[in-house]
């Protein structure tokens, strides 16, 4: 097929499966916490008015918390993925685009 295949040819990623498993685990952790927000709002909306600290209620703390948690989990995920890539693929992760070999030099 004319148009298929990656935009740039990538090196083999030995950490792919490991990263995928970690991603799924973190996705479920975040998904459960997000679902908690939706469930509380749906079933016990009054709870969202409970004051927690600095005069802020549960709705604001939980809502902003979900945004901040996404950032923190993203950074954690990147740290572990980068570490694993370096370990399994070599320094730099080994996933940079493959340079086209200069065939003439090899023949020499």
């Amino acid at each position, binding site marked *: *097929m*004319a*148009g*298929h*295949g*990656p*935009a*740039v040819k*990538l090196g083999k*990623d030995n950490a*792919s499966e490991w*990263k*995928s498993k970690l*991603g*799924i685990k*973190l*996705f479920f952790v*975040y*998904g459960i916490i*997000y679902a908690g*927000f*939706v469930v509380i*709002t*749906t079933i016990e*909306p*009054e709870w*969202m*008015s409970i004051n927690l600290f*600095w*005069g*802020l*209620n*549960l*709705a*604001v703390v939980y*809502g*902003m918390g*979900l*945004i*901040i948690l*996404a*950032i923190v*989990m*993203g*950074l954690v*995920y*990147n740290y572990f*993925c*980068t570490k694993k*890539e370096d370990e399994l693929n070599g320094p730099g*992760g080994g*996933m*940079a*685009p493959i340079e086209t070999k200069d065939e003439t030099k090899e023949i020499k």
Partner: protein
Amino acid sequence: MNYTPSPIAIGVFLAFVGFVLGLSFYFARKAKSAEGYFAAGGSIPWWLNGVAFAGDYLSAASFLGICGMIAVAGFDGFLYSIGYLAGWVVALFVVAEPMKRLGKYTFADALDSKFNSKGIQLAAAISTLVVSIFYLIPQMVGAGSLVTPLLGWDQWMGVVLVGIVVVVIVATAGMTSTTYVQFLKGGLLIIFSVLLCICIFKAGLNMTVFEDSQKLKRELGFGDIAGVIVKDDVVTIPGDSGFKKAGTFKHFVRLEKEGRYSWWMLKKDGKVNTLIQIPSVTKLKKETKCKFTAYNHNPKVAKKEKEQELSTLELFNGYPKAANHFYQVSHLSKIVYKGKVLKAGAGTGSLGPFEFLKVLKDSEVTIFKKVALKAWTGRKGNDFDRNIESITVWKPTPTAGVLVMRPGLKFKVDPVHKKDKNGNVIIGADNKPVIDNNKTLWEKLNFVSLMLALFFGTSALPHVLIRYYTVPSQRDARKSTIVAITAIGFFYILTLFMGLGAMSNGVIDLTDTNMSAPLVAASAKVGGVLLFSIISAIAFATVLGTVSGLIVAASGAVAHDIMDNYMGLNLTDANKVKAGKIAALITGVIAIGLGIVFKGVNVSFLVGWAFAVAASANLPAIMMLLFWKKTTAKGITASILVGMIAAIAILAISPKMAEMYYGWWGVNFDAPFDLNNPGIISIPLSFITLVIVSLMTQKDNDKLDPEKVAAI
């Protein structure tokens, strides 16, 4: 409404648009190949792509729509911020790297990477086009809203302007210029939003009603009418007010003065009955001539407006729009600060971010609830009444800050009470309000459905997916996603303050809540003309950038997926780019038309629809391809089509569309059920379809290339 254009605003706007266009032409030279046009040659650095991601994503919906919804519905608007950002978690943890590994130009490539199926190519291309168009509508609506106060143009002119500029950008440069434009405006939007928030905190909270609106009401003689007599539900107006009663509806009274109609609300305070004038918009079936003297909002220009006459189809508080007689609203009606109730007219002075939220929560806000007076349509009455297409009024409702600062104002997650035909709550035998269980259930389902669509929609948006092909590697795809999450998350926290700032400063234009954030910047208490001009110009650039990204995605779907792959035309690189540009032009024209039609609808609400269609059509296919080995090509094709059609069908018969049918054509269409967000039905339906069809077509997978299967 204070929509008088200023030279500063026009200057800043033209400079911005000119700069964006110049940037596009500069990068046009770098986009000669198809890879350059559709995927920026896979050469964009991750940090730049990350901010560009934020620029792509922080569209009109985020800045205009979310802030506008928070301004009228409090925390419920912030739910969009939470959901939009949470969706990035799915993108980062599940979709980013596989998409980068499997695709080339479009997400159809990734879906089809192991199947080589004509069905997937066509279905994915159609879904990309449909989702792009759904997402384009709110962008165009937002652009139209912006040019009215900036340049003094009509909404449709703004929509056409964006359409033309974007088609020029996309037709000249493609993904490279789109990326740089996104990077620029993403960065600027965040910087100036921080500045606007600082101005809001500095101004603090006070009970002053927007001064310009007050002056307007005084000059028009729309002060409250006290001493109204109410006996057996019959309202009698005092003889000296000059107003004559011309009909009542529920709590509302229509008054007539010198042949002009206005709407009022009865307020009972002990033994004293008062009529308060409320904002109203009357749409007419055929144009009617109106004489009026326009109100001059600009105190610095002491010019005397002459009486003029023009034909109009819409009356704002009884006058044509050009009369400037529709005023801005929403204000704090009670402030509790440091445990004390402040006197009328007093303020808090500058506040910190958390203190701002706390004081607002402890205080009381007068918000304006929209009511469509449907029973008034088709009324016999006089010539004027027979010419009425629809009437909308806004009811001022003092609301405790506690309710503003938690979910429930827009999404009725609390039990909904049954009401009689006059809108009064029905009290049961136990002396408590009777709960409408059916309505309560639908309202809760609407909320869950929205949150589901927002969570699963982000990673299924075509213009987000194609951005993974602009970076060199999977690691860069991941890193750029994290930069995006950080920038977007920070911005979304700011939306809460900008929206609440608009709510508490009385700047809301009820006919177009999308303008709330720019208008709070314009308010003298908070910012001023310069801040307003810069913020609006950036917001306009935001629309330009997002529309560019969407049009590149749509043109890729046509040129690459449909013409090249599905139809097997084997286009040369140059022809593929040419076909993409023609597709961009056609998509732009469609978007312009829809942008005009959906004028005035909250853009975040419309984006919620785009998310629901994207999550229903695309996400089940992406997730199951990656995580379920039994997925077949026919399963993916069926799930895309079923998810997309189900989502659109539910939207077409939703209560919100019924409201729009009424607004457009005065049609009283009763939605069969109270569901405005289709995700809760269409997303599971799409998953189930994929599973059933895949299980029925397992034999197809025997013919697959093992190498391609292993690559997933």
